[in-house]
């Protein structure tokens, strides 16, 4: 194919221009987050200074954030909660997915309907009864409250995704293992699970980002500084009364996004596979 001048112009209009607009729209808020966090307060709250670049970069907001607030504690809480609830969801999700993908049993249709229904239940529907339940269990202001409730949001997705991966394992492999005397559990653990590593990574990454993103339950269940997660901590404690500490807020937003962004950058392909699995395979 020869790319003449006209072809180049068409390509500019149908590819590069729309891509540039989309990239600008998608990434500008992150640029803004970053440069705001590096500006001095005089610069931030002046209408005369050109705001699109940093004139006197400073790390003051980061220092303040890390020394004067409980940001590190919130980060630790967020990671801990996300990791444990992801692990629980992967295990329970796999326990649902394997029989549904491979075995025949009475009530299978009911179980898969229940998973689909759970998938579609948004948090705002359940926060009132859950708040009451957590309260009665005495789990208010404990990380257990969110570690218990987050898997309800993650399990359906993990189960759905893993079902697809379990189905790709050739039945012949499982039959061979069974003929050689392996029990069903051994077949699952020694034959099927090792072949589904990518599925677990995809489901795990997706669940991890979802758990990091959760806000409503954390906002309701966690009201003390020492148990808060980053989103709730930022909203509840970096805004004091009507005063927004914009520099610190932006620093917190940026630092809070970094764990997810790093993990995401390592596993983009797995993440995209997980993201599109629901739509394309389902």
């Amino acid at each position, binding site marked *: 194919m020869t790319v003449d001048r006209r072809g180049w112009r068409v390509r500019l209009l149908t590819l590069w221009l729309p891509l540039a607009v989309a990239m600008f729209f998608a990434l500008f808020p*992150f640029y803004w987050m970053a440069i705001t966090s590096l500006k001095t307060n005089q610069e931030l709250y002046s209408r005369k200074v050109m705001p699109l670049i940093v004139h006197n970069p400073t790390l003051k907001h980061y220092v303040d954030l890390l020394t004067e607030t409980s940001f590190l504690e919130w980060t630790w809480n967020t990671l801990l909660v996300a990791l444990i609830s992801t692990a629980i969801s992967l295990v329970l999700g796999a326990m649902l997915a394997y029989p549904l993908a491979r075995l025949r049993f009475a009530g299978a249709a009911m179980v898969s309907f229940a998973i689909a229904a759970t998938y579609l239940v948004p948090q705002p529907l359940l926060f009132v009864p859950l708040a009451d339940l957590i309260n009665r269990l005495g789990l208010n202001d404990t990380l257990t409250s969110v570690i218990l409730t987050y898997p309800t949001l993650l399990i359906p997705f993990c189960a759905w995704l893993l079902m697809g991966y379990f189905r790709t394992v050739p039945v012949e492999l499982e039959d061979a293992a069974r003929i050689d005397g392996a029990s069903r559990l051994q077949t699952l653990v020694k034959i099927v699970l090792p072949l589904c590593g990518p599925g677990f990574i995809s489901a795990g990454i997706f669940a991890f980002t979802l758990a990091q993103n959760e806000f409503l339950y954390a906002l309701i269940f966690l009201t003390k500084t020492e148990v808060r997660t980053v989103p*709730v901590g930022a909203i509840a404690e970096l805004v004091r009364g009507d005063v927004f500490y914009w520099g610190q807020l932006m620093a917190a937003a940026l630092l809070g996004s970094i764990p997810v962004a790093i993990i995401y950058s390592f596993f983009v392909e797995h993440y995209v596979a997980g993201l599109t699995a629901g739509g394309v395979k389902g």
Partner: protein
Amino acid sequence: MTAVLAPALTRRRPPFSFGRWVEREGVFSWLMVALPVAFLVALVGYPFFYGIWISLQDRPVAKPGEFVGLDNFIRAWHDPVFRQVAVNTIFYTAAATLLKMVGGLGLALVMNQDFRFKNLTRALLLLPFIVPTVLSTIAWQWILDPAFSVVNWVLKAADIADPGPSWLGNPHLAMFSLIIVNVWRGLPFYAITLLAGLQTIPPDLYEAATIDGAGRWGRFRYVTLPLLMPIIFIVTMFSVIFTFADFQLIYVLTRGGPANATHVFATYAFDIAMGAGQFGQGAAIALSMVPPLALIILAMAIYMRAPKS
């Protein structure tokens, strides 16, 4: 006697063996699914029905409830704020979903070409979707700040408006801003999922269509769109449900203001239940999301089935 019968019995029915019982397909399956099913029943199924029970009570926070039947729902029905909330939610969902659908499809088509750094572009475009919503929304709040909005700075610098509009203070603009931020966050999901769908369409279909005389539009209308429909449907269903029940974005940017102009079901239920401490009323408002959601899903399912049958 036993010596004669025993071998016959074992042949017909072997003595009960736990190991073999566990190996039965049905038994093994239920041993596996029992724990997760119990978990979901305890933390999703039970709270759902318990929520219905709470919604039938007058229940101030930390006090025993009193059964009042459908009073909470009737009160919501006559509450002008509730009606505004319903209108707001439907408008917000419809506008945001439509923009995400059209924009996402457009972006997917643009990205379904060969170009350099395609994977990097795709990874960067997905960032708004993976970064915790509350944190990116805080950045948007600063972008739309009444006094120091960068948008207004640009408008002023370009001599378009001085001072610029109050993006979150004006009722109509506040709704508009929320929709833009929602689209910003949700569009990558649409685009990347639809892109994955586009890549599954076999190229020979396009060749066949071209031979039959189809132009660019014809190929899109008669090849791309029909084959993409199932994916558009699923993505839209997710988008509609989660936009309809959106909480984070609105809570951070406007808390439902100004003057309830951006209150949606989730934020209003939160205000009533957690702010005013009326658990019963809050549960009733939250549950009011169920019928419209069910209707939307049903309507979409029927619409999707119609051309096929």
